[in-house]
């Protein structure tokens, strides 16, 4: 496992500013493409309100700061850029993303990191259902999703590779921690069902009843802590958190019992 090149820094004072107020996503995204084509490497989007597909398919060394709440599929199919969202995000953050970094300062909706193949999705607050579903790793492509708060049901479903971390910190915007379900657990039900690769690291206790049958629960080992050491400082830096208490854990690891969960299903 290796990490990719560090993501570009956040937009600085030389950033190109695009006012997204009232723009349809198609117009907004064309303006972003036009700015990139004109050489912009740093873009601030003001007045974003629900526009979908920001950063969709964008490639290369580029930093985008989103002010306002972006719509679904933020950073879908993206490879390379860094997107910072100063508010909540909707569903599908980093959907089928290849590389790059998305940092959401608030909460995110369902399926962040869906089928993600590389790069990082960092969510400061809570996230919804099916976080990191079907993430997969190959060679130096290694997707990472870190959720600062809690997640709901089916986290890491079908997970085939990469790293998913749930920290259980107090929520984004200084709120108390969210609750993944009525029992107030860090994870919803059915965590890791169908999981056949990768690992989910949870900071705090894991109730075995909320974990899928194909998943083993163990205390995090040295390799897990090393992986956390690679990504948690970046997560904490993105949100201005002190890394030491977060790193202190303790962490539990959820990992698959087999990489062939359905190997004995058929009559030959």
């Amino acid at each position, binding site marked *: 496992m290796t990490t990719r090149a560090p993501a570009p820094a956040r937009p600085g004072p030389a950033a190109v500013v695009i006012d997204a107020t009232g723009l349809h*996503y*198609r117009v907004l*995204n064309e303006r972003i*493409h036009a700015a990139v084509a004109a050489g912009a490497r740093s873009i601030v989007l003001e007045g974003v309100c629900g526009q*979908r*597909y920001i950063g*969709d*398919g964008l*490639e290369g060394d580029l930093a985008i700061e989103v002010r306002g709440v972006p719509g*679904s*599929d933020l950073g*879908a*199919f*993206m*490879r390379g850029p860094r997107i910072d969202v100063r508010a909540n995000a909707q*569903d*599908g953050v980093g*959907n*089928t993303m*290849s590389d790059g970094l998305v940092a959401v300062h608030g909460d995110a909706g369902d*399926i962040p990191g*869906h*089928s993600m*193949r590389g790069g990082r999705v960092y969510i400061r607050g809570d996230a919804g259902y*099916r976080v990191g*579903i*079907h993430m*997969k*790793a*190959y*060679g130096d*492509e290694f997707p990472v999703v870190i959720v600062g708060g809690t997640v709901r049901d089916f986290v890491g*479903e*079908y997970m*085939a*590779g990469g790293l998913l971390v749930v920290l259980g910190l107090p929520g984004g915007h200084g709120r108390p921690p969210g609750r993944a379900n009525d029992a107030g657990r860090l994870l919803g039900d059915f965590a890791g069902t*169908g999981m*056949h*690769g990768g690992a989910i690291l949870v900071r705090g206790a894991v109730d075995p009843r909320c974990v899928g049958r194909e998943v083993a629960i163990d205390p995090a080992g040295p390799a897990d802590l090393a992986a956390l050491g690679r990504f948690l400082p970046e997560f904490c830096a993105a949100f201005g958190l002190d890394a030491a208490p977060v790193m202190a854990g303790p962490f539990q690891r959820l990992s698959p019992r087999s*990489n*062939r*969960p*359905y*190997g*004995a*299903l*058929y*009559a*030959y």
Partner: protein
Amino acid sequence: MARTRVAPDFAVRRDTARCINCKACVRLCANGVHVWDEVAGAPVADESKCVGCHFCEEHCPTRALSIERAPAETTSGGHWTRSAIRGIGRQAETGGILLGAMGNDRPQMAYFDRLVLNAAQVTNPSIDPLREPMELKTFIGSRPDRIEIARGAGGRPRLGAPLPPLLEIETPIMFSAMSYGSISLNACRSLAGAAGEIGTCWNTGEGGLHPDLESCADRAIVQVASGRFGVTPEYLARAAAIEIKVGQGAKPGIGGHLPGGKVTEDVSRTRRIPVGSDAISPAPHHDIYSIEDLKQLIFALKEATRYSKPVGVKIAAVHNVASIAIGIVHAGADFIAIDGIRGGTGAAPSVIRDHVGIPIELALASVDQRLREEGLRHRVSIIAAGGIRSSADVLKAIALGADAVYIATAALVALGCHVCRTCYLGKCNWGIATQDPALTRRLNPEVGQTRAANLLRAWSHEIKEMLGGMGVNAIESVRGNRDHLRGVGLSQVELDLLGIKHAGSPW
């Protein structure tokens, strides 16, 4: 595993008068049927392993071998078929789901066989396609509701709005989705090369794009399926069109998995997953739980490719296929591929392959009809798939409303497949449905390309002959024109669903 009690399907007959003990069969059969018996100094056969692929039969230098159906003697009558009894036997031994490959092997009604085409006699002249132009060129994609005309400099008319992107194919026949992994790289090369040679499209399936096939990507329809294997920015950028795979005729409503044993080094590189890991495609796309979500993915793909190529959706033909198709058009798809109950697969639970879904002919007719009624037919192209065996099936499908068809089994048969239906074993003797280098070598991609291109050429010629016979000079004249069809031996309900008259009825 203990020796199976289930009796063999095939009898391997060896004419000892012809056999010269060359051991070719021993070397050739990947299923290990033929073994050399040192004591006898002759090959012997373990028939229980024979899948009936006829490879040894066709490659025996003295034609000493013949592979025959084993006598299907049971005391029971029609209801308790041999396959029902054998299936239970295998399930009693293993407790597993029965797997099948290729299309439905039950006597499902093939409506194509009950449809007949028309020809011109006296009142309008037929056309000889050998001497007169005959147009098969087809465009796949969405047409605008109207053409906006604006006036440019000097009042010259020009298009007022850009037209949606269209896929141009020289014949209305494309190769259907077959992933690298389910078939060999040489099989992919053969089909991709033939598509380029003829000017039509091939389809990557959901296995990603192998580097060796990148040069053929401009003729590739790339699939985005629930597993999202190999879906990278350049995969989307290079393609001619993008197909969101929701369903497949051989396994409507279920996902799939390529067993870890088939995820070799090279397959793993294309799918972007580790060697030996199961490649699991979930049953649904987990970002699509509704038509609105489908719209979101369609436009995520259009945004990613800057609206430069058609984005379509492939579904299995199911009971409410027409309503689903309406939803797909409203979701912004540029084409809909519909795969009927006879559609093939590399592996599917037989029970689903054989019993779930509806015939493509009925699905096609009902979708075309509903789209017309809703005034949406121009917004989408329809690609029909699932059991197309001949140019006549192609033309009938087009007359029922398809813009083009997908073929897969027929294409593999052109490459040598004998439809033994054991693709899931990974030991295809013809080098098609296998990743074993000793077997894939048997399929020369240049020969394969020629054979697959020949099939498309031959069918295209036949279609031109049939069109000429009807007295029309373009496939466009027959598209959705059901007056060219008549039914034979069909009930009124079936005729109404197909939107055709019974044979013998005048225009």
